[in-house]
């Protein structure tokens, strides 16, 4: 193959979905899967007002996650009428329009970005969208998956298509072995720390290298999930045997001969050897330590064994100012050790880290230990099936005996849209994806970290290097 004919995985997926071009160079793309959640009431109201119906209900899948309580499965118990409407109207509209719904009482219910891969709805080579920025998660199966706004979601409901200008491509190669206590969350936090929160704006990232291909499917989902925190349009990983064995047998995955045909097509998806990217970045994974954020942007991140950085050492006056602002909000002092920072809350869950392997790794640290008396720890599984699996393995007992609250699936305290928030000036060690000002509640302070690091913080009462708590250490 000549270099000119060589294509990236992104280009292969893009060209297969191209319907037509507009004079200004935008492309009308065909959308394979549209995942929808309980923020979609305005979209359905729009469709109804225009006298339109979903163009492809069979390619649309719904589950309420943003507004659902995680202490009950009864939507009728949501005390706030406007939030209750968001959840109940999704059930009504999907029923009216014949859209598959995984409702609160269905075990398949969960966070939309956990449910999609879990059900085999998200597949290699597809274009998958959702009005939620963490849709980049699904790129882990080798799909082009991205978030969008509600007007674009209206457009997709009405036409199953979307206008897009072709983004640029970026390859991030992470090679080497991961040290003990280091996981997918640490890889993506290290990447964001390196390239910054706008480092990949306008780009689709393909993650590659032995540290990425060595990850399980769930680890890959965590990495792709946070692509948006580096500004990227999407993140993706080439499908391989790990992907195929993960998808085989899932409810919405192809079966029988269809599976064989799909597999033959999926094997052609990976980026051609000679294809080139608009930009290339590489990291050595053996240098990555367990990471934790200290500021109010995911790029404000450092290894747990380090100190809180000093704004005086910032590379520019602007950066110094934003570091000072972040440290003031976080109530932290430059030079203090990160592992000395005491926490009030611990949140284990979200579309980033609410899957079974995340819960297993947190439980391994929590087992036989007690949540610190000053800490309130929550475990919120990413889906009803994750919860059931965890209970089958006895992880719920481990968490409960340690003193964690074991809850129902939902987005919960990642952003608190359902009312479950971190209190004012409380500090939360969180496995979620954003440490923005006010993200987990007004004046709440968030430290992003991995599930095992979150469990370690819960039992010691402060940010802690989990490597010191692992067996054999």
């Amino acid at each position, binding site marked *: 193959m000549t270099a000119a004919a060589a294509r990236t995985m992104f280009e292969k997926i893009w060209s297969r979905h191209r319907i037509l071009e507009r004079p200004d160079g935008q492309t009308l793309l065909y959308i394979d899967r549209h995942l929808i959640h309980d923020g979609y009431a305005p979209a359905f109201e729009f469709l109804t007002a225009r006298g339109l119906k979903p163009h492809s209900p069979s390619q649309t899948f719904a589950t309420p996650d943003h507004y659902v309580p995680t202490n009950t499965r009864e939507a009728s118990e949501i005390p706030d009428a*406007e939030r209750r*409407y968001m959840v109940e109207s999704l059930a009504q509209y999907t029923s009216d329009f014949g859209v598959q719904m995984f409702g609160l009482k269905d075990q398949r219910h969960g966070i939309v970005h956990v449910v999609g891969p879990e059900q085999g709805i998200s597949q290699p080579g597809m274009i998958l969208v959702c009005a939620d920025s963490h849709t980049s998660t699904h790129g882990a199966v080798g799909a082009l998956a991205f978030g969008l*706004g509600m007007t674009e979601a209206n*457009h997709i409901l009405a036409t199953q298509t979307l206008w897009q200008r072709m983004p640029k491509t970026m390859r991030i190669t992470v090679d080497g072995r991961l040290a003990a206590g280091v996981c997918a969350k640490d890889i993506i936090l290290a990447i964001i720390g390196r390239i910054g929160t706008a480092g990949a704006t306008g780009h689709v990232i393909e993650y590659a290298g032995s540290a990425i291909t060595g990850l399980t499917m769930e680890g890959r989902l965590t990495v792709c999930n946070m692509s948006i925190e580096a500004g990227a349009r999407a993140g993706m990983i080439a499908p391989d045997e790990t992907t195929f064995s993960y998808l085989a047998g899932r409810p919405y995955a192809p079966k029988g001969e269809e599976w064989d045909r799909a597999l033959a097509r999926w094997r052609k998806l990976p980026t051609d050897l000679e294809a080139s990217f608009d930009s290339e970045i590489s990291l050595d994974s053996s240098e990555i330590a367990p990471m934790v954020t200290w500021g109010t942007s995911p790029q404000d991140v450092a290894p747990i064994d380090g100190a809180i950085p000093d704004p005086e050492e910032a590379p520019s006056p602007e950066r110094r*100012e934003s570091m000072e*602002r972040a440290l003031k909000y976080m109530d932290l002092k430059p030079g203090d050790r990160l592992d000395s920072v005491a926490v009030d809350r611990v949140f284990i869950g979200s579309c980033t880290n609410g899957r079974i392997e995340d819960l297993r790794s947190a439980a391994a640290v929590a087992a036989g230990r007690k949540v610190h008396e000053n800490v309130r720890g929550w475990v919120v599984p990413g889906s009803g099936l994750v919860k059931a699996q965890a209970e089958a393995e006895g992880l719920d007992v481990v968490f409960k005996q340690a003193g964690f609250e074991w809850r129902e699936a939902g987005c919960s305290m990642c952003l608190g849209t359902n009312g479950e928030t971190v209190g004012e000036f409380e500090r939360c060690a969180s496995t979620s994806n954003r440490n*923005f000002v*006010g993200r987990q509640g007004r004046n709440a302070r968030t430290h992003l970290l991995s599930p095992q690091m979150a469990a370690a913080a819960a039992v010691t009462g402060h940010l802690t290097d989990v490597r010191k708590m692992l067996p054999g250490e």
Partner: protein
Amino acid sequence: MKAFKSLESAAAPFLPPNIDTDQILPARFLHKPRSGGFGQYLFHDLRFDVNGAERPEFALNQPHHRDARVVVANVNFGCGSSRENAVWALHDYGFEVVIAPSFGDIFHTNCVKNGLLPIRLPEAVVADLFARISETPDLVIRVDLEAQTVTLPDGSTHAFEIDPFAKYCLINGFDELDYTLSHRDEIAAFENRYGREND
């Protein structure tokens, strides 16, 4: 969508880089009905203290910026969550133009779809704008979409780029969905052949 051709207005400056959509519209207001308007929640926690009183240091609480229709912001404005409610909040408050060196991708798209004109100007130009607004808080900025220019009171003019189709939609208040629906046959033909081609 309301058409936009040009305007002359005071500007409100928002200096910090990387202002995310959680700050523009905090998550706890996301479930509010669109009909009630989101302007009241715009920058809520920066604009009001915990008792609901205005924070005097915040731009929108200062007399010269209160009725501004142009936002001047720093790099990566609107990063983070895809919530279109952040754009609705700016729009409902009365803003029609957002000037910044760069934007979050989804936010930028959401602006265009709601008749809010996003303008990218070089960092140095925006830094100069901040300085001028600080000196002259009621500085009037003229934005002309047809000519693709931003003009300051001293006559200095900065050209900006915009996607031609986005420009057409903004100037005519045109809904993209109508355009796409006029291509129904091509979409149907694509669906007919999609998945049947020799992969």
